[in-house]
């Protein structure tokens, strides 16, 4: 039915089957959209946020998707600037994942603010001292970069590419992609960092505050680094999931191994920095403000030392080691374990840097604040997931996302 749109030579499932799958995911999407409109029209009383929890699930979701979407900028950086050509086999997909992550982040931000119609004040009345301003600027600019990076892939659609203008446009954009990628890397570096700075500059919150370099707290650099380290893991994870669902090998092992190796080293070096940061914070920064480490991890029902151990050791050091060791890296099972742990690890880090900050009491007579999101918050947070699945499905079906697909599935085709 839609065979004219499907990339030449590629095999895709039957259209009705495709539509059924889309409908199922679409229902989840609509649920999220409904919740989104509730929040817009009735206000943020639809959430379980409160004056102690002004930043909650949504901000975590924003930080998390931006971190795991970091695969796009980092892969782009490696491919276009450091000229690691092998990554061309996964760059398209990394860009799509990045695009999904960043558009989701913007959407969630649009729901999260109390006065969406005034959202543009952040640009117009910008306060240059605020990390959030930097985030907003770089985020939207980088989203533009991702869109630019995504466009050529769209234009390579079998039908679109027949239009000469589009054909040429795609060609030309490929030609200057290095410049876009460089700009994207520059922007990403800052907004990933600024997101880390968001927490690090809150000197009223001893759990969050970090010392640093000039105006940048250490979390600024840690966030950038961690996004570069864990983002590719998520790209690999989604690739793996896509391969599992389509039942096809889409990216060659060489590319996978290379990216996994890079991610492994990035994670490992990040973890070294993170551990140094944690030790310094726990032994110098926090005590200088009158806080011992136990203050942050005891006397409450949820945030125990487990979260520190989980984030740093189980979901940080462990996947790092698994990915730098050749044997575990090239073993599909241990590699999968590593990228799953890594993805959880970075999400956990963002959780801690948003929600635990809000939960920890600062005034000596204050108490821990715990929070459970409302269904509206959950639905609007799942919305991007549904949206992402749908976009990946459509892109995979109609665009030549994976350059190696035909080659890698030749044997299967031959067997048919």
């Amino acid at each position: 039915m839609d065979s004219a749109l499907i990339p030449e030579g590629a095999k895709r499932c039957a259209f009705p089957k495709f539509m059924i799958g889309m409908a199922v995911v679409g229902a989840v999407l609509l649920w999220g959209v409904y919740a989104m409109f509730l929040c817009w029209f009735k206000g943020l009383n639809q959430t379980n946020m409160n004056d102690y929890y002004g930043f909650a699930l949504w901000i975590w979701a924003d930080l998390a998707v931006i971190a795991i979407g970091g695969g796009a900028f980092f892969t782009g950086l490696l491919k276009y600037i450091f000229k690691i050509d092998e990554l061309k086999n996964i760059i398209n997909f990394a860009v799509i994942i990045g695009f999904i992550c960043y558009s989701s982040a913007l959407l969630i931000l649009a729901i999260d603010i109390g006065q969406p119609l005034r959202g543009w004040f952040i640009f117009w009345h910008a306060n240059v001292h605020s990390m959030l301003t930097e985030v907003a600027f770089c985020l939207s600019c980088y989203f533009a970069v991702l869109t630019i990076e995504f466009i050529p892939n769209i234009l390579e659609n079998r039908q679109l590419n027949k239009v000469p203008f589009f054909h040429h446009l795609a060609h030309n954009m490929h030609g200057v992609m290095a410049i876009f990628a460089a700009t994207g890397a520059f922007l990403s570096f800052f907004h990933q960092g600024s997101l880390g700075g968001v927490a690090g500059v809150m000197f009223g919150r001893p759990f969050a505050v970090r010392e640093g370099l000039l105006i940048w707290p250490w979390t600024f650099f840690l966030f950038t680094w961690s996004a570069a380290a864990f983002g590719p893991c998520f790209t690999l994870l989604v690739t793996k999931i896509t391969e599992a669902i389509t039942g096809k090998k889409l990216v060659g092992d060489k590319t996978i191994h290379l990216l996994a190796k890079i991610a492994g080293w990035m994670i490992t070096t990040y973890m070294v920095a993170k551990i140094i940061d944690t030790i310094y914070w726990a032994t110098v920064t926090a005590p200088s403000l009158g806080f011992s480490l136990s203050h942050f991890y005891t006397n409450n029902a949820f945030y125990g030392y487990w979260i520190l151990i989980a984030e740093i050791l189980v979901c940080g050091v462990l996947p790092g080691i698994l990915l730098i060791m050749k044997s575990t890296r090239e073993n599909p099972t241990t590699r999968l374990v590593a990228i799953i742990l890594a993805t959880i690890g970075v999400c956990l880090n963002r959780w801690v840097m948003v929600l635990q900050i809000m939960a920890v009491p600062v005034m000596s007579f204050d108490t821990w604040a715990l929070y459970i999101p409302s269904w509206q918050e959950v639905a609007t947070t799942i919305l991007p997931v549904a949206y992402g699945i749908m976009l990946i499905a459509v892109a995979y079906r109609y665009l030549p996302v994976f350059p190696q697909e035909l080659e890698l599935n030749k044997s299967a085709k031959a067997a048919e």
Partner: protein
Amino acid sequence: MKIDRRSFLGLGLGAAAGIAVSPVGVKLTDDSSIWTQNWPWTPVPEDGEITYDPSVCSLCPGSCGISVRKIKGRPVKIEGADGYPVNNGGACLHGIAGLQYLYDPSRVKTPMRKNGNRFEAISWEEAISIVAGKLADIRTDGAPETLGVITGSAAGSMPALFKRFLDAFGSPNAYEMPSLEGNLQLTAATLHGAGNTIGFDLENSDFVLSFGAGIIEGWGSPVACFKANASRKERHAKLYQIEPRLSNTAAGADKWIPINPGTEADLALGLCAVLLSKNLFTQGNFTGGFQKFTAVIQKEYSPTRVEASTGIPAADIEALAVAFAKAKAPVAVPGKGRGDHGQNLKEFAAVQTLNALAGRLNQEGGAFVMAQPEYLSFPEAAMDEIAEAGAGKEKIAGSVNKLIEDINGSDKPLLNALFVHNANPCYTLKNTQRVKDAFKKVPFVVSFSSFMDETAMEADVILPASTFLERTEDVPAGAGLPKSVIGLATPQVDPVFNTKNPGDALIQVAQAMGGTIAESFEWETYDECLEAVAADIWDSLSEEGSVVVAEGVPEGTPAVDVSYLAANPTSVEMKGEGDFTLVAIDNMRLTGTIPAASPFAIKTVSDKVLSGTQTVVEINPASAKGLKDGGEAIIATEQGEAKVKVNLNEGIMPGVIGMVKGLGHTFDNPYVAGKGVNVNDLIGPVIEPGSGLDAAFGIKATLKKA
């Protein structure tokens, strides 16, 4: 294809481009954000000239001077009036929130008549004629004494006017709600002779021994007490608080002396006994069996015996007595909490006797025995034969609590009609069901309430009263003050609803009845009446807004008749069974009487007092037995049970449960009612023999996990 996709594409792109290079996008983006800054459903208060007008707050007996800030004549804020002889600037939260009462959703907006179970709006003419008609029937039946009146207090022209109505009508049945002022007058009458009252010179005392008096919880004239208390720091004066619970007063005191609930009288007499035995007392003007008193007290209230009942070590009692006697200007203050409900005469008399023994009567920083202010002179009421006959009859009961008991206990209706003014007995008195039952047994109840409160809901006719901001009234201040001040409340705004000054309503009822009753109420309006009856002080009252009738240390040492205590009256025992003693707590941010706390006041109430729609009770962790902080529990007394939440609090004696007064209103106002339980539903009254006071400060209770 004539018009293909590309045509539409062209059309769309062209339109988009055209709009893009026009101001539409920019302007709409800007204007839509400006729209959010001026949402039509967010009110914009009107601006105008700012003026300040003085008046007096009559929400509580404190009677503070207030300054009402107005914009273009529209009141926007109430603040304490600088220089006013009671509060001199500063105000309590209820007074500051006073404007919320003006537009309260639960106000009675027009006269009402009960039809079946529902109220219907009627005109003032109709309302007055219904009331006058019913009352006329009662007189025709020859039973004028079956008209009763319950007023909030006995002070001022309004209760006097109701009393006058009863006189002209022919009934002796005027009752007042329990109040600190009433209790002090009763104490003064018992010890020093009728017509007196007692004031406490807290401002000048260097050692205040408070028998649970909530000096910063609304006792007496709250703001005056706050000020006197705050000045302690500079004056290096001490406050010792004797109370089972770490109230705010106890928290602010120099020393908190926990005591078994309800044994304050024992301690006061125990201190008297120590003074007597150590010969640290002043002979003064003791009369009425001082010898017998000395003997009885020393025998019955020796420190060891008092230790047994109060739980305070005998040595501490002796030391406390000595410290009290040795202080330069000590004063002992009676009246647990706000000193109005759940009080007993024995304690009041014992504490005042302690003052007398320490030689603190009519001394600077001591207790003043003062004549009740007499500034109203009503002309003799005209009485016809029916009135004469009725007025000669015996009053049904000695107190409002006894009245309720008697009405419930009698087969035939003791009252055929009842006026309620400035009181909410169906909420404030203990065992509210009992009060409501009694009200149901009265065939015709007329409420003069401003609000559709629990008592108004039991009424047959409501003649809605203007609030204190909409009417004129004389406001005599403040229970327990060491001076007499009369203030004048003046209308700050035209009545917001179809309400009247209850004085006007009463005058109109009287005039509608004709005859000698109308003759007794010859004034056109209440304002005219007030000016006439307060003629002695009217000029200065209306000009200055207040008149200080008496101030400074009264002269002479008053006689002290101790025969009441010499007879060793029995202490009131707590009713019921259970491991715990439930005591009612006064909290400054709530009102225990009328009106109910405002939305603002409710907003300030801690979540350790009210959580959602549940009352939170205080209990010491030592007696919690498996109950968790914040957990739900069922509290049960012989009176009833209620679901509550638990606050584990080290600031309360083990075995005692503290439950706040002022919650559990049942009328229709989602901001203040439907929240928590009324502690009066759980505690039944215990009438003290002799005084007729409801002395139930608490009740035995059980507390189990819900």
